[in-house]
């Protein structure tokens, strides 16, 4: 869906992005993480055809961002971190304008507008003036505008920026809904907690360079050298530890006595993890929960970056 090859951008004496290469499949939710000034917005603007790369290129659904800009614009939706709205324009007129700008036929526009308003929970504000909306509603309206032409790829530059906690949660739920619709989402943020339960792939950029990129779990395993499996048993956690310890590829097994939880460091192949569950059940132990530990993006970020701010 998205592939960048050595994407670079230089402004006079400043190298904003250097040799950025990554690949996303359709349906991926890619978290683009980095401190302020790292090059996130510059990267997104290049992908959105707003900035011409100094070197390298990118392909969106097979279309080159340098030579096929018209096609690329129809395939992607761009939501900037800061944006303005027009005075004396109603919500539905705002969406109708952008629908026309994306060459959507007049006959289809009313239904599309109703659909995106319903999706972004702005149906009740259809006839309100855009400048009267709250910050959170404007953000949702911008997202609605981004969806009006049903793009395959969404480029979202800090979509929750400046929002209060409730509005942040609403945006996050909305993005989860988009994920379930099969959209490929490229979302930048400097707040790790926003992305941790949402992204299946991440890229960390620092000082214009992509430090790490790929599947979240694989990166975590790469850093820590193992997968941590969290197992809860009804009772007898110590016996469970004795069952697991001899199994090949099982490293340290730590027991948390208070709630009969075991934290198992596993260095083997992911498709052989089920053997641990089979052994526990075979030993007569009642397992109430068996799952992989949630990736801690903060751990990844702190280990992979050096704290360089350009």
């Amino acid at each position, binding site marked *: 869906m998205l592939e960048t090859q050595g994407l670079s951008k230089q402004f006079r004496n400043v190298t904003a992005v250097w040799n950025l290469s990554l690949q996303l499949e359709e349906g991926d939710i890619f978290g683009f993480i980095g401190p302020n000034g790292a090059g996130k917005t510059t990267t997104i603007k290049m992908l*959105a*055809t707003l900035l011409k790369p100094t070197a390298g290129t990118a392909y969106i659904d097979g279309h080159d961002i340098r030579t096929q800009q018209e096609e690329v614009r129809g395939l992607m939706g*761009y939501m*900037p971190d800061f944006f303005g*709205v027009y005075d004396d324009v109603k919500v539905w007129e705002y969406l109708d304008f952008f629908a026309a700008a994306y060459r959507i036929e007049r006959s289809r526009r009313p239904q599309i507008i109703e659909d995106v308003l319903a999706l972004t929970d702005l149906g009740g504000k259809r006839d309100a003036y855009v400048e009267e909306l709250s910050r959170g509603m404007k953000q949702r309206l*911008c997202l609605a505008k981004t969806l009006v032409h049903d793009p395959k790829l969404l480029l979202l530059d800090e979509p929750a920026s400046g929002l209060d906690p409730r509005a942040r949660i609403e945006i996050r739920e909305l993005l989860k809904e988009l994920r379930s619709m099969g959209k490929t989402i490229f979302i930048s943020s400097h707040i790790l907690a926003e992305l941790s339960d949402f992204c299946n792939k991440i890229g960390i950029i620092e000082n214009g360079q992509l430090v790490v990129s790929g599947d979240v779990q694989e990166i975590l395993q790469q850093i820590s050298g193992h997968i941590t499996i969290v197992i809860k048993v009804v009772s007898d956690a110590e016996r469970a530890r004795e069952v697991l310890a001899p199994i090949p590829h099982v490293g340290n097994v730590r027991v948390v006595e208070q709630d009969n939880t075991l934290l198992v460091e596993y260095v083997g192949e992911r498709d052989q993890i089920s053997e641990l569950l089979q052994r526990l059940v075979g030993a007569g132990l009642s397992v109430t929960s068996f799952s992989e530990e949630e990736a801690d993006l903060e751990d990844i970020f702190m280990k992979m970056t050096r704290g360089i701010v350009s």
Partner: protein
Amino acid sequence: MRGARGAVIQFVYVTLIIAVSGVMYTFFRLEWAGGSGAGANPAMAAEFGHALFIGISVLQAGMVCLLAPAFTSGAITGEREQRSLDMLLVTNLKARSILLGKLGSALGYIGLLIISSVPVLSVCFLFGGVSPDELIAAYVLIGTTGVFFGLAGLFWSCVFRRTLQATAAAYGTVALLCIVVTVMDVLISELTRYSVDAPVLSYVNPIMGILSIVLPEADTSSWSVFGTVPLWVVTVSFQALAAPVLLGASILLLRYRQ
């Protein structure tokens, strides 16, 4: 146009035209009353009709020279300042469409103001002294002047990043073409040993173009070095040639300037 602002401006403009017309009529009435006759005769009426036509035409030409750049010089810089330009540029709209849309909305409102003055202007025909050719020529020149200065405003709006700078440059263009060129013509005429009857630089001055239409009694044929081609035709031709250049440059700046 939403809200009272558009209607208020329209009201003020038409009131101004009516006021100017009323003042002119009052002066003419006083002149007629003070003349040898008891009232106006057809020649005097035609004189007033023509004078009214001159006044309104010059007023509208001046209005177009002042408003067209004002409406367009903030078209792109305003979008940039309120951070809505990027969202326009990522759509399937071509730069040409964006610019022509901005120009159309600016000139549309100016056109509305001009149309609003038509009832007052029609009084000229009631009094006589104005031919349809003069009327058509005047409005062709006013129209092309609006388009030209509108495009100039758009061009500067694409060059600069701030509305203030773009507006200053747009009005600088107006001042250059409406005042400076004619002053330079006068200076050239005064400072050179040659008596230059025909203006060289004033071809681009739309005010001079309007005057060449509304003052048929002046020997305007000597104003043009192109023989019998009236000065206003040369002005319109210059604007027609310059307009696509301004539009093309604006398109390149909007789309490719990073």
